[in-house]
């Protein structure tokens, strides 16, 4: 198989994720879009790992990315929950009080 099939799939998922981060107003939806981006990165890493005849480093760092993503979702959803408790809304365009 060509490596480009996987790389282009990763690029498509990455772009869709970027669109989601920019276009969504709900904080939970933005976190979901970030998951799309992280998965596209993992596909790229594993494709390059296979291209180097099955390099173990790619697999190791794909696992690390999965773990970091899990931590990120946990903290992110806790923050979203706290914002919701304080403001009764998780609309991101209303969170502008840090704008100085």
């Amino acid at each position, binding site marked *: 198989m060509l490596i480009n099939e996987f790389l*282009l799939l990763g690029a498509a998922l990455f*772009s869709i994720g970027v669109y989601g981060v920019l276009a969504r107003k709900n904080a939970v939806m933005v976190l979901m879009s970030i998951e799309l981006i992280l998965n596209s990165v993992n596909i790229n890493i594993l494709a390059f790992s296979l291209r180097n005849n099955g390099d173990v480093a790619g697999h190791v760092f*794909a696992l690390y990315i999965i773990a970091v993503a899990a931590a990120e979702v946990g903290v992110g959803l806790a923050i979203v929950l706290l914002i919701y408790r304080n403001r009764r809304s998780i609309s991101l365009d209303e969170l502008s009080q840090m704008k100085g």
Partner: protein
Amino acid sequence: MLIASTNVAQHIGFGVIAATMVVGALRVVTSNNIVRAALWLVVVLAGAAAQYILLAAEFVAVTQVLVYIGAVMVLFLFGTMLTRAQIGRERDLNNPNRVVAAVIALALAGTLAFVLIDAFHAVRLPSDSTPVSTAGISDSIFSTYLLPFWALSIVLTAAVVGAIVLARRD
């Protein structure tokens, strides 16, 4: 003959799964229903696990199913449940200026596709590489990449404690 037929099967499998993933990802970012978006995200994550298997990374695929589909999706559904009273269609999920976001995403996709096709149009994945064993991955984690593993352990501990502290009602 056998190699050729597995190759065709690989291509068909890749195409079907990739198309499903792209459609699912588009539904994730355009759906008006948070729970539906979360379930479409499950489709995308499962497709990613299937692609990892095509890329000869079984252990990563299994971890993806366990961690993402098992744990992260439950977190997302909990987050939806705790922050939104009603479950159903909502109108107010998108930014008003999402046309700009679409333009940026299309420009990014075009640039990435151009660069990738330009740079890797002739690169083939080896079909006879030695498979990476789970034992090899664990040996590598606990010898060469031990320091990032420690850092990651500290990050995970901090994240768990931080999430509890943030979400606690006091």
